[in-house]
């Protein structure tokens, strides 16, 4: 064992520990996700002023952009977990990677659909093959590929390993999605919110967007933890700690 990793992290990697940890954290994450989400929607749909150029139609940004961020963020999480799963064969990492994929795919799908709905009135088209739109579609196919590959094996650990390889190869698409608007002439506009330098959005529109970003992150945590817990129970169904939980549930 590498000694630079703190002990609690090692412990957290064990299925029963993570099961309990995730069980405690999940309701809080979900509660704050709903709270922040509702605040962001109120701020974005009611409080924020109309845009000078797009009027009220720009308000779909409060769904579209946080979903797009999540589609990339979850892919990165999935790829990192896949590397850990492939190199260290950590069961928990496999589960996290494989259970992230459907959530990420859902966010990617929402991004594409809301983008399409936004594109029709503003740009004049539902879809066009510019670099940003195409690379985001490729991202959706990568997610679907990972999900499909995982489920096409009889043995789930073998499936996870194969799908993890696809996931880490696909990570190359993530910077392409992000920088596509800078590298090529696209119909899609550049980034509004910037980490380096000032964002190109007035403050009363920006805070609901960032709040929604927090809400989607927390939702991801809550959703992932729920899925991972169920998966751990199924995976370890013969073990003592699972039997104890089953007995507790039966007694209720």
């Amino acid at each position, binding site marked *: 064992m*590498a000694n630079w990793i703190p002990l609690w992290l090692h412990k957290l990697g064990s299925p029963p520990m993570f099961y309990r940890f995730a069980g405690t954290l999940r309701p809080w994450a979900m509660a704050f996700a709903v709270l922040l989400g509702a605040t962001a929607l109120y701020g974005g749909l009611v409080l924020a*002023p*109309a*845009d*000078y*150029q*797009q009027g009220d139609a*720009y308000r779909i*940004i409060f769904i579209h952009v946080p979903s797009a961020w999540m589609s990339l963020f979850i892919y990165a999480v999935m790829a990192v977990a896949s*590397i850990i799963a*492939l*190199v*260290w064969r950590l069961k928990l990492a496999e589960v996290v990677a494989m259970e992230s994929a459907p959530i990420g795919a859902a966010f990617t799908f929402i991004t594409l659909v809301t983008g399409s709905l936004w594109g029709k*009135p*503003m*740009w*004049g*088209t539902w879809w*066009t093959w*510019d*670099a940003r739109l195409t690379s985001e579609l490729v991202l959706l196919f990568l997610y679907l590929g990972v999900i499909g590959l995982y489920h096409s094996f009889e043995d789930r650990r073998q499936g996870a390993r194969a799908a993890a*390889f696809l996931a*880490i*190869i696909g*990570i*190359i698409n993530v910077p*392409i999605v992000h920088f596509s608007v800078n590298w*090529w*002439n*696209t*119909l899609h*506009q*550049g*980034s*509004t919110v910037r980490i380096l330098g000032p964002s*190109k*959005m*007035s403050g*009363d*529109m920006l805070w609901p967007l960032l709040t929604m970003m927090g809400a989607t992150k927390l939702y991801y945590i809550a959703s992932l933890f729920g899925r991972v817990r169920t998966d751990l129970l199924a995976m370890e169904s013969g073990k003592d700690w699972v039997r104890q939980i089953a007995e507790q549930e039966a007694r209720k």
Partner: protein
Amino acid sequence: MNPTRKRRLTIVLLVIAAAAVAIGLTVFALQQNMNYLLTPSQVQSGEATRYKTFRLGGMVKAGSIQRSSDSLKVTFTVIDAGGAMPVEYIGILPDLFRDNQSVIATGHMDNARFIATEVLAKHDETYMPKELKDAMAKAHEGKQVNEAALQDKPQ
């Protein structure tokens, strides 16, 4: 790190590196075709002669929009920093189409004119309330700053 893990990590990193190189080369090779649009100055310098149809991107020149009174025919001029191109289009235009708006037109050249089959409006990444925009415009008025400077410029 034990040797097995080290080997696995090396394999994983090699796979990522190989995929990155492969995709990098592909993108590099396709660079010419990956640009979504050409600007008027690019067209005038002859870069569009390879294409039968292509996308023309630029800004609608202020005051150049002329609508036909008895049909959907519209003519306007698309400009960029160093060129201008007259465009002809028959059809319905998107909501954002107006003076100084970035647009992308798909179509072909007919002598010096561009005949568009589709016109899309491109908007920039700036969002602000109308009042703020008006205030900024007022502040700029004295200096006679082109509104184009506030808009997204196609490269």
